[in-house]
């Protein structure tokens, strides 16, 4: 982004709840400041529409669930310098990737009288399964501060720093009391990537892993702890098959305990 012209930014949406775009729409005055710093070329929800435009930074929300999604994301990739996936849907397929685990054809038939009218693949996949992605910002929803920090870094010409710590570390920094150690509540914090601010233990509840797996997440060890806390295999499986279900080691751990539940 060395030219004197303002950097061009696009915000694109695929299958999602729209919650990650709110990182921009909830930014208040920062949104107006951002519009001074960069040229927003495409952002349908904000009323700016030019999906064909070439951009310097593309922020993409949502997972790929139709054949036309694949064509769209390939086009966006070809016309953007940096492409950043934001949120659990774009980075991991989202909660709707549960269809990858179960029989989604029968699901369609249960909900729609005429499923043949609905154009959909039977999988929900992250962007990186289809194109190369320069940076992934995890979270359901992505944290607004992370998104703004990423733009700031890119405006300075460096790639943003990634969060790699586990939620447990942030929890300690916050001075929150450990809900698993003190109350025996099965908490996903030990295997989950931070970035959220460890807000769940701060309100006295378990982390449910909405920022996805941390680096070197020891799901085996945590699962055994869950067994010790009295969780049945089916319940353990459902803790991993949750917001970021289709990404390892969560997918694998969930599959393993699902199998254990069927065998027992």
């Amino acid at each position: 982004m060395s030219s004197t012209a303002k950097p061009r930014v696009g915000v694109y949406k695929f299958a999602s709840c729209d919650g990650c775009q709110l990182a921009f729409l909830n930014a208040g005055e920062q949104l107006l400041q951002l519009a001074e710093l960069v040229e927003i070329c495409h952002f349908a929800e904000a009323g700016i529409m030019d999906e064909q435009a070439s951009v310097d930074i593309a922020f993409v929300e949502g997972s790929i669930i139709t054949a036309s999604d694949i064509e769209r994301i390939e086009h966006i990739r070809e016309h953007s310098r940096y492409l950043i996936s934001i949120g659990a849907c774009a980075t991991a397929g989202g909660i709707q990737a549960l269809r990858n685990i179960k029989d989604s054809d029968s699901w369609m038939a249960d909900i729609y009288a005429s499923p043949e009218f609905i154009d959909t693949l039977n999988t929900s996949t992250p962007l990186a399964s289809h194109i190369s992605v320069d940076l992934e910002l995890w979270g359901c929803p992505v944290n607004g501060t992370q998104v703004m920090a990423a733009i700031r870094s890119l405006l300075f010409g460096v790639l943003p720093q990634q969060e790699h710590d586990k939620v447990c570390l942030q929890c300690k920094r916050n001075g929150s009391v450990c809900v698993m150690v003190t109350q025996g509540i099965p908490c996903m914090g030990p295997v989950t990537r931070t970035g959220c601010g460890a807000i769940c233990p701060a309100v006295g509840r378990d982390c449910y892993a909405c920022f996805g797996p941390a680096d070197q997440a020891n799901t085996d060890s945590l699962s055994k702890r869950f067994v010790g806390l009295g969780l049945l295999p089916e319940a353990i499986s459902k803790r991993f098959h949750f917001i970021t279900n289709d990404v390892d080691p969560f997918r694998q751990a969930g599959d393993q305990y699902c199998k254990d539940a069927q065998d027992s």
Partner: protein
Amino acid sequence: MTEKNQRSIHVPVLTRVEGEGALDLVIHKGEISELRLRIYEPPRLFEKFLEGYSYKQVPDMVARICGICPVAYQMSAIHALETVFAAPQHEWVRNMRRVFYCGEWIQSHALHIHLLAAPDFLGFENAIAMAQKYPQQVNRGLRLQAAGNRLIALFGGRSVHPVGAKVGGFYHAPAKNDVDDVLEQLRSLQQDAKDLVAWTASLDVPEDKQEFTSVALRHDNEYPMNEGRLVSSQGLNIDIEEYQQHFKEFQAPHSTALHATLHDQPYLVGPLARLNLNMDRLPDAVLEVIAATGVHFPSDNMFHSIVARAIEIYYGLFESIRLLEAYQLPAQPYVEIKPRAGVASGCTEAPRGILWHQYQVDENGDIEKAIIIPPTSQNQARIEQDLRTSLTSLGLDQDDDTLRQHGEMLIRNYDPCISCSTHFLKIKVERS
């Protein structure tokens, strides 16, 4: 175009709506022969993947249906499940759910008025362009939006997919100091909210009177949010458990959002329907602000929806201030839940209108079956009806661009949240 007297207009992607959709219009011999609002965001099949999960996980799952109104999804689900489990009432929980919901109404309405709808009435492509000419108004809107988000975060840790609500109540009670800080912010915005009501009422909106049926919750003595009976402007008055005996949901081939009708007729849900049916439940302070606008409610002008939203922002501030001024730390911010098998419904007033859920659960509290009927699918038949009437009265001989712009403005006025099914507007007009 097969015949000279037929034309078609196609709006490919509707902007400034939450989600994606398109509008197809066929005009044959000067009349609309086909009109289809297509919602093409593919379905994410939430109802099916809830099956087998514990009731404890449901509030965190259903929040993901909509990033703009996660509180509504959590509230309808929680109320339904508490009915199944015959959970006891808890006054503090009841009041604080109301405050939590006020936060969502304030942020969602402020977002819609300023970032999505107002540019239509003032002739801008988008809010960022509008902010150049109307910086004070846009900044006022952003302040209100931020206050709504802060109220949600007070209970939920964050405003999008908040983590504080559970079946039985809340995981924690906010500290008194934090409540006082928020109260101070809310009080400082009351004049802003009053000015906003006056500003929306002064906007040059189209005069477009129509006959339509309003549907909303109605409570014995409160403006409806979490509880009440379902009533309509045509005399319907039913328990929420009777919803499916009166309302039918069906699939239209052109859309992934299911359509719903009341006794086979389209109906309106949302802020205008709520206000039309519940004016007498508003406190005097809010009625005075309404009276000062000169807009008469109940209104049959759909474009008064933006005024209704602003009024609900003012009310949301009023109500949350009232409840938070009496804030006391509870002994425990939830009631204990004892799961049991059964089926029950939950219906609450999402910012966009009634959101009806029904759950069938087993004796452990695991979900066996879920039905979720979001406000946008309920409004869809009504939007199509409105488009037919309004575009015809605008004059179908107008050029495609005029029809497209009016159609988009009209659809946005309903604040359709297409992520519910699933996003928005392509218009295609065929003329013959």
